[in-house]
């Protein structure tokens, strides 16, 4: 195996190590919006991400399971309100994902150019 092939394999292996929870476009979109606010309610997320309520709900549950977001349900004047907030763990994971992706893309582009 040539040196170039070995480097390529290393980068391909790094792709396998990428956080698959964040790598989903839907969840990535949700996390990016949440990273820009202190907290947001369910309706705000529906409108900013453009996701359906069911899809958003299912993905938020997954993000909550891994501890990336916290979900608080309350009642304001008998109307249900759900506030969602990105956790510190979620923020760290998002930054780490961003760094990993940048590194992989940079490495692959350098190889293509060489």
């Amino acid at each position, binding site marked *: 195996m040539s040196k170039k092939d070995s480097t390529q394999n290393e980068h391909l292996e790094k792709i396998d190590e990428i956080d698959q929870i964040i790598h989903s476009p839907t969840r990535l979109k949700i996390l*990016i*919006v949440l*990273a*820009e*606010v*202190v*907290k*947001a*309610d*369910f*309706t*705000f*997320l*529906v*409108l*900013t991400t453009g996701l359906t*309520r*069911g899809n958003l*709900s299912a993905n*938020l*549950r997954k993000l909550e399971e891994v501890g990336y977001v916290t*979900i608080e*349900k309350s009642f304001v004047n008998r*109307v*249900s*309100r*759900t506030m*969602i907030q990105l956790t510190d763990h979620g923020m760290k994971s998002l930054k780490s994902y*961003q760094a990993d992706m940048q590194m992989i893309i940079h490495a692959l582009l350098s190889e293509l150019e060489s």
Partner: protein
Amino acid sequence: MNTTDSHIKLETELKKKAFLSFHNDGIIDILMGWNLAVIGVSLYLHNLSLLSGIIGLAPLLFYGLLKYKITLPRLGHAQFRTRRSFSVWLVGAVGGVFLLAAIIYGFFINSSSGFVRPIAFALLGIALTMVLISGFNRILAYAILIPLFFIVGFGLRFLSPEMIVATGGILMVVGIWMLTKFLRTHPIQVEEENLV
């Protein structure tokens, strides 16, 4: 562009989108129109009494309630970080300086000079440019344009009570049209129990 820059840009865009959507309901336009109309009627009747002031300002007390009942259930709520970009501060500071200059000029300096007209229009032009730069932010627009409307209008002696009432009426019609459109395009979002 580095990561911090792209985050700031995204946050600014998100904030701008949320802020503009939040004020696209026409409520502020209806209330501003009402206030102008009341001021116009008061001037027409030569009556700037406490009562007309109360009638004019009363709807502003309902502003928060209307937003809470009409806008929030439709657009949702997000708490943004308080970070402000330098350009926002700069636009705000320049706006403040020009507004102050316009107020001082309009109220305290005798307007017999031949420079009144060009200066007044220059101020109005700068205000309009700033409003456009800020993405037609309604609050900023009204905060700048309403005082200038009176300062320039009275300074140049072309503003009559009828014109103030007509301007208020136009704003109210525009506001009602916007509110109707907003209610049609943004159905109320009720959270279902089984979601999340």
